[in-house]
């Protein structure tokens, strides 16, 4: 199948998935207790005031017709206005995309560095104390709550050593970078163990392959064997769990954003769910859904790129 045809099929499938996910989230958030109109006017307002606001927001229409109106507008990228804040959803979500992407990107990059180096060290010295130590460290990293580790980092590097800000995103590029260091390290440490295990086991499998032995027999240096042959093939296995890893990173980022006061999509999701701000929640669900779908397609493309035996 050619690349164009493949992408075409995947994208139309993705569109269906997005529609279903959005519809389900739309219905679910309205079934959970909590009325944004009542939240907006407060506990002491009369029921008439609440009903008037519900009518104004279109919340008194039947669920399916509300869903239809939303889908129609969403298709034109019109996500409406926030209920609790005087702003369009686009203006609330827009500025938060870059901080979130920067955090997730930096976090994943750090996770990759940690996972690759530790997995290589463990696989090459299989069953030595280094291997066991690395596997132990990996378990600790996996079990450690990210908000706790983040606070420890902030305490040590922010408060005790004064090298970095304890929280916040700042206003200049330099401050953004400074503010993202600790949260990115926290996220990287949280995600690395997932990559580390699969990478280590796939490295071990690869090391046992005939072509590695053949390469060694031909006199290729160890470094060349490891980097040019073993690692490339092992990464393929890791890439298959990329979707899981990104999902983990995105959900971990929600907590980390709150701890470090990074104005990203995760903290917006938390606050809009707390106030039942339906338009914002819906827009974020669409955005996250699109991200997961995009990552899934990228996942397959990367895997095909890395392993020539795989046909799209």
């Amino acid at each position, binding site marked *: 199948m050619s690349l164009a045809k493949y992408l075409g099929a995947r994208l139309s499938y993705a569109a269906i998935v997005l529609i279903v996910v959005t519809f389900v989230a739309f219905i679910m958030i309205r079934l*959970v*207790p*909590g009325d944004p109109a*009542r*939240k907006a*006017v*407060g*506990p*002491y*307002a*009369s029921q*008439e*005031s609440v009903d*008037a*606001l519900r009518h104004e927001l279109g919340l008194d229409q039947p669920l399916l017709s509300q869903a239809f109106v939303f889908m129609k507008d969403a298709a034109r990228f019109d996500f409406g206005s926030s209920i*609790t*804040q*005087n*702003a369009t959803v686009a203006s*609330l979500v827009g500025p*938060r995309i870059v901080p979130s992407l920067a955090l997730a990107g*930096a976090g994943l*990059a*750090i996770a990759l*560095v940690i996972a690759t180096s530790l997995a290589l060290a463990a696989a090459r010295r299989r069953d030595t104390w280094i291997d066991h130590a690395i596997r132990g460290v990996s378990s600790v990293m996996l079990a450690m709550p990210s908000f706790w580790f983040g*606070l420890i980092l*902030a305490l040590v590097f*922010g*408060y005790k050593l*004064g*090298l*970095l*800000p*304890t*929280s*916040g995103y700042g206003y200049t590029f*330099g401050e953004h*970078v*400074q503010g*993202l*260091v600790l949260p*990115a390290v926290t996220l990287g440490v949280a995600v690395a163990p997932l990559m580390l295990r699969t990478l280590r086991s796939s490295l071990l499998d690869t090391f046992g392959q005939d*072509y590695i032995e053949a390469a060694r027999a*031909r*006199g*290729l240096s160890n470094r060349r064997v490891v980097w040019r042959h073993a*690692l*490339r093939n092992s990464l393929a296995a890791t890439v298959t769990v990329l979707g899981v890893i990104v999902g983990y990173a995105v959900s971990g980022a929600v907590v980390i954003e*709150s*701890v*470090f*006061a990074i*104005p990203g999509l995760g*903290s*917006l999701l938390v606050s809009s769910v*707390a106030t039942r701000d339906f338009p914002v929640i819906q827009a974020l669900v669409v955005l996250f859904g699109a991200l997961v779908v995009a990552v899934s397609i990228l996942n397959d493309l990367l895997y*095909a*790129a*890395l392993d*020539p035996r795989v046909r799209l």
Partner: protein
Amino acid sequence: MRSRNGYALKRRSGSRMTLRAALLPFGIAACAMVVVATAAASAMYSNAATPSAAAQSGSLTYARADEPSKFDPQGVPDLATAQVLIQLYDQLVELLPGSDVPQPGLAKSWRITDGGRTYTFTLREARFSNGDRVTVDDVVFSLNRARSPKTDPGFSFLFDTIRSVSVRRPSTVAVRLSKPTPALLGYLSAPPGSIIPKAYFSQVGPKGFDKAPIGSGPFQLDEFTRGQRLVLKRNPYYWRRGKPVLDEVVQLYIPDDNARVLALRSGRVDAADGIPYAQLKSIESANNLRLLTKVAGIIDAIYFNQSGSPLRETKVRQALNHATPLRSINRVVFAGKAQVANSLIPRLRFWDPRVKPYDYSIPKAKKLFGSTPGFSVSLMIVGTDTASRQIAQIVQSSWGKLGVRVSVRAVDTATWFAELIKGNYQASLIPSGAGNSDVAEPDELLNLFWVADVLHMNHENTQVPALVKEASVTQDMSKRGRLLKRIQRLGLRDPYGVPIAFEPARMAMRRGVSGFDVVTPGWWRLETVRAGR
């Protein structure tokens, strides 16, 4: 691809090889860039260069757990929003720290006539932050906005006895009431009673006003970056001479409790609000920090929905009150900084300190409980609130001694609120900090809970509601005071719940910062704050 010694790896198509070859080095280069960039940035920008704490001496940086939702004072202000509104706007009368009696604000004097049915306010000379004079038209406009459910759905009920607001003379406004409302001045001192400029508001409309609000308060809004910070600048036209002391207040939004305290300790901010109880002791002992705790009009309590349950019996509710270890809860949950509650509503005007709170006595409780069979009760709490979880545990074990089996129902804030408003609960604990009064007058909460029963507590007491209605229209202050104290006493004897503690407002600051003080409804006035550098 061929290696140097002729070993060939078969590839089926050349294009895939190129993609893969390009991907890995790029990935490694990207990582390297990130690492180098962050290291360079950290080296370049040391902590001391961060603007905020080290800025000019007329500026203060202050970290809060919340940020305002809007700037329209008649648009349902929650406590977080009220905190900012009170700096931007003035009211006819204002609450100043140290007293619950409203003081002259934009009204320099007033007369109450006609048995308490007519208030005549004389305005002082004052200007909005855009230089325009504050006129009687602005006052009439603002008060009419405040009392209309369309423009002020959340708090117009406070002003429902106002029949008309009219101009008497160029600087006098008359407010006529349908019946005496002794709490009116207190209501007018709350954020919904803020005076906004009519001409400017009509010109820009509600949305435009919210984006660029104009008031006559000590500060004006300079910048609002949602999710990050809010900057207030001095209002050069503010009518109180010499105030505000600060040129600028930068309010940072740091929702995580621990991160906020860390920001204070590390010197990034000069002051932080909402200090978690667990950290109070360590801040007190830190020698570069000062802790300010002051009991405000905030109560922590359990409410009951009495319909169709053993909780209908007064003796059962009294027994549960005797079975709640208030002093232990104060010590364990509130680090001993709260005050054991002796009233069903917070400490407001006319609070009587001599009313005795329930003492913790299981024998007394058992005696009151008598032959009532043990029953189950579901206690709804906000699961994310530490204080609620701790109190729920304590209550569960204490009430268990009476044979009352408590099952804790932990939900998120929005669900808790929705269920409470609908009456879908048996017992519910208010989360820490949420049980505040919007005004210093007890009338608001007494009417809402005893008369209107907005939380569906379904209590059957008729004596207290009648007294509340009477106190609400009694203009004679000493008679009113006696009635309110009687309501406190009687209410506690036939309680609609279990009052636990009067919570303190908690602010910590760098030594040298002074002038912070809180008023009863729970907000901090910033015009007297000094950065002290």
